[in-house]
């Protein structure tokens, strides 16, 4: 058990709508893996199934070989930033993290450390009501890092960050990956992805379109990431071979 992510035959149906359709992929430790797809591709649903928030219709989503709900200390094993994660507007950033530490069995000293790691020390004692989008995003990242987890699952972590914030985020994620952690990050900002990730997963319409090293995606045809992304996710008739083999 290496702390990687294993998704097999993962499917989620909402009535007649299939949001995620038989996804199979793995995410290895030691690198940042980008999780890309157009709006409505099923990214968020997939991440929520990994985290036990949404129950799959079929298939499995395992972290280090276990379902999220079966992890003994989930916050110390997995950190997550989700788009829909919120904060009570009347609670300070520091108190938000204190609550999570208490519930997650994390030593209280980690609160200050996580605030420092995302550069939020100065605003920590202000109510979240007064935070900018970028500051909320930093607080979300601090919550994910709080338990010093080996696995990070990040849904659009760069949302609302200014260029300096994005650069800091990139450095933090690269540092964590170099440390042997597993990082799965979804994003719409392809230029950001191109600078941050080593591997990419591309999904569209709930199905996997590509899984492999970034260089393999762009290198073969000398395409930009954007061109490759658009080719793989547009549902125009695809020629044979246009979809790179999945799962390698």
């Amino acid at each position, binding site marked *: 058990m290496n702390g990687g992510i294993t998704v097999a035959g993962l499917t989620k149906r909402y009535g007649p709508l299939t949001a995620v359709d038989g996804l199979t992929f793995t995410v290895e430790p030691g690198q940042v893996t980008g999780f890309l797809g157009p709006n409505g591709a099923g990214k968020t649903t997939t991440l*929520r199934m990994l985290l036990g*928030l949404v129950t799959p219709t079929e298939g499995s989503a395992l972290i280090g070989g276990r379902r999220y709900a079966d992890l003994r200390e989930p916050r110390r094993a997995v950190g997550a930033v989700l788009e829909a*994660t919120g904060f009570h507007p009347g*609670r300070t950033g520091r108190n938000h993290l204190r*609550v999570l530490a208490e519930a997650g069995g994390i030593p209280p000293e980690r609160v200050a450390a996580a605030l420092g790691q995302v550069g939020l020390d100065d605003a920590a004692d202000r109510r979240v009501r007064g935070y900018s989008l970028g500051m909320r995003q930093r607080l979300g990242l601090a919550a994910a890092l709080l338990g010093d987890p080996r696995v990070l699952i990040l849904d659009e972590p760069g949302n609302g960050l200014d260029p300096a914030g994005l650069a800091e985020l990139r450095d933090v994620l690269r540092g964590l990956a170099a440390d042997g952690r597993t990082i799965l990050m979804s994003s719409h900002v392809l230029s950001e992805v191109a600078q941050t990730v080593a591997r990419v997963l591309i999904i569209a319409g709930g199905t996997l379109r590509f899984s492999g090293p970034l260089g393999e995606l762009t290198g073969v045809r000398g395409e930009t990431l954007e061109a490759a992304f658009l080719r793989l996710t547009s549902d125009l008739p695809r020629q044979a071979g246009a979809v790179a083999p999945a799962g390698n």
Partner: protein
Amino acid sequence: MHSLIRAEMLKLRTVRGPWLVLAAGPVLVIAGISGLVVSGGDLHDPATQAKALAHVGLTAIFPLAFGILAVAGEYRHKTITDTYLSTPARGRVIGAKLLSYALCGALAAVVSAIVGLAVAAAWWSAKGASFDWGDTAMWTTIGGGIAWNTAFAAIGVGLGALIRNLAGAIAAALAWIALIEGIVGQLIGNLARWLPFYAGQALGAGGKAMLPQALLPRWGAALVLAAYAAAFAVAAIATSVRRDVA
């Protein structure tokens, strides 16, 4: 479970709302007792003391609203995601909330009772009547009022977990008290005493309430409210465990 309850208490202490709920009860009790005295209540009648302190039970509407916030408030602010990420065993989360909020409901009622006793004793002495601190009917009324507050806090947690939409859950609670208990209660005669707000009044006002219908005896009302709280708790846990959090 211990750390979950501590986390719930920390959530409550780090925002302002709960303190407002804690303050609202005593305000209602002060207004109610002062109203009773000013409107010419007979302070020499021994039953008046219990009548005055019956206002402690009526503050139960605040723990009810407060309990609704426990889960529905987390959905509103989308903190429920983080709560379930910390504790994937959702039944334990709801259980910790039930215990924590019931305790807070009881504490709020104790504060209301202390304020109520002080205000009543002051009014009695101002009007030259003697306040009987050993009045059993008054103390059982206070005890029943605290139990009513405790049960309503737990019922609120269950209701909020079932409905999840904050405005919807508050509206449902108000509609229940005003429409079902207020209007339908008049039409179904003695069956009305099995409704939760009637049972609460039986518990907190001691059977001699301001209502025409006969109320349950105190112990019976306590059982009925406990059954309502348990039913809501079971339904809340059963649905929370299954539902997708999106």
